[in-house]
């Protein structure tokens, strides 16, 4: 059995914990990298303790978990580190878009009322997704049996669609036009009045902008 000086021991233990695929116990260290060295329990403990201290001010930390020692990122850095992994959420379903549209146009509205219009149940998943995206929120409860939540759109919803207020949502004539024209968007006659109407209305609404 060979001797190993403390500095080498520290480098070796440090490197091993960093290259290991999972946390390593002191026993695992002894069975692998330290197999040919005589290392006292005290020396090993000391080195581990020093490493914990060395990394205290750094972006990663040496921690002891149930299955051994491992290096992990500093908890407070997580909001930024999270950006290193991005996953794209799937596109919204028709049910999701219709629910959102009904909440936007008919707010405040209960889930039951949405279901009444759509003729099908609204899944909790849809409500959760829209709530998590902070596009809708509960603004109150309808005082009927069961006190269902009343949903409305949020400031974030308006911001996302660059709307100053809900009044800027295209009106029924516009979407009639949109719908009819879907294959051929050339018909301007239907769009024209909505433009001027909008101007008047925008003037009316201006004051609400920074409520």
């Amino acid at each position: 059995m060979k001797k190993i000086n403390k500095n080498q021991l520290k480098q070796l233990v440090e490197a091993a914990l960093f290259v290991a695929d999972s946390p390593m116990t002191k026993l695992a260290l002894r069975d692998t990298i330290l197999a040919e060295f005589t290392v006292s329990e005290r020396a090993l403990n000391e080195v581990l303790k020093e490493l914990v201290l060395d990394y205290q001010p750094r972006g990663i930390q040496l921690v002891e978990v149930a299955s051994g020692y491992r290096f992990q990122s500093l908890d407070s850095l997580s909001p930024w580190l999270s950006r290193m992994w991005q996953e794209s959420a799937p596109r919204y379903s028709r049910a999701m878009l219709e629910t959102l549209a009904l909440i936007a146009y008919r707010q405040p509205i209960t889930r039951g009322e949405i279901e009444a219009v759509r003729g099908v149940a609204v899944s909790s998943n849809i409500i959760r997704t829209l709530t998590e995206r902070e596009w809708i929120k509960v603004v109150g409860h309808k005082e009927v049996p069961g006190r269902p939540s009343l949903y409305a759109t949020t400031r974030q919803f308006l911001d996302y669609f660059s709307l100053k207020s809900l009044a800027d949502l295209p009106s029924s004539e516009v979407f009639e036009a949109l719908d009819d024209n879907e294959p051929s968007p050339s018909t301007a006659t239907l769009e024209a009045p909505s433009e001027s109407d909008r101007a008047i209305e925008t003037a009316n609404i201006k004051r609400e902008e920074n409520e």
Partner: protein
Amino acid sequence: MAEEQQEPVVSTPIQQPLPLAFINGEAVIEKPEDLYIPPDALEVILETFEGPLDLLLYLIRKQKFDIVTLPVAAITVQYMEYVEVMKTLKLELAAEYLLMAAILAEIKSRLLLPRRSDEEDDEEDPRAELIRRLKEYEAVKEAAQTLDEQPRMERDIFAVKADVAESVQPLRIEPDVSLQEIVLAFSHAMKRAAAFEHHTIEREALSTRERMSQILAQVNGETYTPLDALFTLEEGRAGVVVSFLAILELVKEQLLMCVQTGPFARIHVKLGRHEED
């Protein structure tokens, strides 16, 4: 350089132990001047050559020749002996070895031809091309060896990785939605619901509905909120009108109830509907 004219020792076969070593896959053979080597061992040696150039280089190095002076005759003899052994061993003799034998023979014959008297002719040294190839191959061989010695992943260096803290969550990229999609979705929903009249969704109503949401968020079901608290005078008349319409709509939809304790008293509102209606 001094040994350039030294002829190779083509000795009679002498049985001797085979001092054979492999360093980085390269056959290092101390003095196999004779070719009397146990056939299976020879096979191993021959297979370690990476082709005719490698074998030639080995022969040159073994005899301590200088590549630049390439004693073609001597080398050719030795090379042919190896090739003969390969043949007798029925080694799968690569065509490249035979091609090289032909090249060597050709060079040798050209060297034997009497040279013209005029020194300035452009008759090139027949060995030149072979020498160039040998030098080039030797450089490649060296480069390969250096590359092999270069610290590399898995063998000398290992990737280092720290775990992420539990709180690291992949950033979710939410899908894009266009305003048009929302408008169309609403239109579709409305069309399906025959009971609804499209025109009831007026623009005026939308600003009212927005205000309805705002008012609902302001009041609660436990305590009464003074009605005038729901008006913001700074908004001007239009704003007050929108609020008023919103309150009326909320009462109509039985979301809000208004209470007035006596004539001209302050009106209060709270969530809920008038039971006594």
